[in-house]
Structures are given as C-alpha cells and as structure tokens.
C-alpha cells in the first residue's frame, strides 16, 4: 500500500537531486532550475501530508499554491538578474562573477 512514507521519501529524493544540482553546476540558469526542483519537492510534501492527515481542510494545497506563486516571482526576478549580469560580464559562468573577491 502506498502511504505517506513513500511520498515523503520521493520528495526527499527529489530534494536531494535538487541540492546536488545547486552545488555542482556552474551555469547560473542551471542552478535556478535546480532550485525550482527543490520547490517542487516541497510542494509534493505539502499535498501528500494534506491528503493523508487532514483532507477535510485543503490547507496543504493552498500553501502549495502560494509556494508556486512565490516560485514564479522568484524565477522571473532571478532570470532578469542573470540577463542583466550577462550584459556586463558576457558570461553566466559562476566562476566569472568574481568582482567582490579579494
């Protein structure tokens, strides 16, 4: 029987894959995509707990919608930042963003 445990393990696996993407990529857009993956994993958690523990109130789905809204806002601003950095540095490679390094 598929229960809450399976869903939470799936979401933690997705979260781990997202963390690996953030830590080991050097393209700024790829890191942003991995952050989106982590947000999706968290959404699965919300909805799964909502369905198995307390389905009469749909608060879990509501919070997942708010997380989706926040993720959309964050992606648009993040990508605008990356594009504007690309205009100056001509690169989206993280090792090239070293102006503040000593």
């Amino acid at each position, binding site marked *: 029987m598929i229960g809450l445990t399976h869903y939470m393990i799936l979401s933690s696996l997705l979260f*781990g894959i997202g963390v690996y993407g953030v830590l080991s990529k050097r393209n700024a857009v790829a890191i942003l995509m991995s952050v989106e993956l982590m947000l999706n994993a968290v959404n699965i958690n919300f909805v799964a707990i909502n369905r198995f523990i307390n389905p009469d109130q749909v608060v879990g789905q509501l919070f997942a919608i708010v997380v989706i809204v926040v993720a959309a806002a964050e992606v648009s601003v993040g990508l605008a930042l990356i594009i504007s950095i690309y205009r100056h540095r001509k690169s989206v490679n993280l090792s090239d963003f070293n102006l503040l390094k000593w």
Partner: protein
Amino acid sequence: MSMVTINDMAFVCIALFTILSALGMVLSRNIVHSALALIMTFIGVAMLFFHLDAGFLGLVQILVYAGAISVLIIFAIMLVMHGEPNQTNRFNPSLGTHLWGAYIALLMTAGLVAAIWFSGLPEVKGRTVEDAVGLLAELLLGKYVIAFEVAAVLLLLAVVGAIILARGVEEK
C-alpha cells in the same frame, strides 16, 4: 501482505518517471536538454498531484510551471547562451568540488530518508474531499485572505522588478 493494486503500480511508474527526469536534468551537459528534462519533471510532479486527488493543484502546476515558468527559463537560456550548446552545462571544473557537492547531497538525502523511514508515520488510508476548488476558494478569500493579497502584491513587484532589471537603466 495486501495485493499490489493498480494505484500502487501507477505511483511507482509516476515516481520513476519523475526521478529519472530530475536525474536527467542535473546530469545533462546540454542546458537545453536540462530545461526539457525539467519540464518532464514538472509534468511528473503534476501527475503525482493527480494521484493525490489534488486535481486542481495538478492543473495549476501544469499551467504555471510547465506552461509559463519553463518558457521563461528557455527564453533566458537562449538569450544568454554563449558557445556550443553541449558545453553549456558542465559540472564544476575541479573534481573535488563536484564530489563534495554529491557527497553533501547524498548525506542530506540519506538523513531525510532515514528520518522518514524510522519515524513510523501513521498508516492512514487517507480520505478525499469532493469539492476542493470551492473549499480552496473559501479559504483563500476567507481565513487566508492576507496571504492572497500579499501574493498578489509580490507578483506585481516581481513583474515590475523584472522589467526594470532586464531592460537596464538608460544613461540620461
């Protein structure tokens, strides 16, 4: 030991699809392939939402993530692509950093999975609620109306901020 139902087999298929797409996303060297694998992951997560009887949320996921955010990401990739496509998404140059990243991610995942497995979550069957859309609307405009309004203001700020950032400040 109860029988394996179609429900369980469907969950296993969807979960495998989602995890393989996510792995494809982080392991691909071509960033456009990464973006397409990310879209497949989003659709996989939407299918998981359908499996969890959250139909409305699954459709919101497809509409917002797979339909809009993915297009944003692909547009940005095409605007900032510099060089050959299959060199755009390499891992960190030094093997050490790369392996450290994998090690930390594995450690964290193992800790989370162990915490969930050994914590003995209740084996509840889970009921479903019929009219999720109506209930969501009542919550959104009733008890959580402040969150709703703040989310609207956040989206407005994001739109204005993104336009200003992407357009750049003109020298007067």
